């Protein structure tokens, strides 16, 4: 499988994602620059975390001026998987690809650490290798991790099974209904604030992020085997 790690100026954790996918998970991964942005040949796109455009104005906002956003929107339409973590999630939300918006953390401070998450939906292509209701631990690091959607939308998301992860502890930073990760309507785009790429090796932060990547790969190989 070939992953594009879509990097904007300031997306400082792009290399971390490449490392996770390429060296640990063992699939193809390369950084794609936001200016070049030909995504067609890739099987999946990941928007890594970091502070694209310095998080200025609103996190994820200024990335909307990059040519890559249009290619990304095209890519989303193909139905192939797109994952945005941390700042990558914020970019997806600002682009309108995922619902909601981000506010500053409830206590106004940048926060980092580990959060315990509930896997709310283990039947998505991003979570199939987890168990439904499983609790996992993933690192997080953000200043605007306070996810907002209006009540109606939240209800709808829940009804549609599009809330993929929720915070099981008090590390939600104010997020509506403790939402930590959501899916788009088609089910091929996942955004999440916790950072699975920081939890793929025991030496640095556990391995609870691994099944997420394995799920994507499993789904891909199933589809591609049936095509063959």
């Amino acid at each position, binding site marked *: 499988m070939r992953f594009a790690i879509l990097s904007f100026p300031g997306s400082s954790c792009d290399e971390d994602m490449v490392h996770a996918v390429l060296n640990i998970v063992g699939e193809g991964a390369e950084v794609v620059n936001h200016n070049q942005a030909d995504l067609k040949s890739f099987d999946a796109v990941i928007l890594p975390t970091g502070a694209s455009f310095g998080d200025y*104005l*609103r996190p994820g*906002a*200024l990335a*909307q*001026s990059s040519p890559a956003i249009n290619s990304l929107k095209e890519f989303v339409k193909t139905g192939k998987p797109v994952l945005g973590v941390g700042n990558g999630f914020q970019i997806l*939300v*600002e682009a309108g690809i995922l*619902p*909601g*918006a981000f*506010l*500053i*953390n*409830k*206590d*106004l401070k940048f926060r980092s650490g580990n959060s315990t998450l509930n896997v709310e939906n283990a039947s998505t292509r991003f979570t199939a290798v987890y168990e439904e209701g499983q609790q996992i631990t993933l690192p997080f690091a953000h200043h605007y991790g*306070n996810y*907002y959607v*209006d009540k109606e939308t939240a209800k709808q998301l829940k009804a549609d099974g599009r809330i993929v992860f929720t915070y099981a502890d008090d590390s939600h930073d*104010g997020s509506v209904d403790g939402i930590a990760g959501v899916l788009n309507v088609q089910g091929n785009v996942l955004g999440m604030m916790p950072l699975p790429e920081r939890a793929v090796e025991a030496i640095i932060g556990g391995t609870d992020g691994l099944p997420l990547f394995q799920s994507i790969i499993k789904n891909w190989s199933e589809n591609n085997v049936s095509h063959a």
Partner: protein
Amino acid sequence: MTKVNVYVTLRESVVDPQGIAAKDALHKLGFDEVGNVRIGRLIELELSGTQAEIEERVKKMCEVLLVNKVIEDYSFEIGEVAGK
């Protein structure tokens, strides 16, 4: 160049963590007469064009980039339009 002030505020339905913190701090400092506090953004732009052009363009900038309509509202004020 004409100066335009864009005022971006959080929508009423959205909780404003900064506003709440500011209100608490003001109360602690003895400013008990303060009720609600909301913190928004003031964007000062300099740009060229006629009044009508500016109006249209600034609106577009807000919609496309400067404002996140999911959580924010905006208004703007155009200063004296400079001749060309």
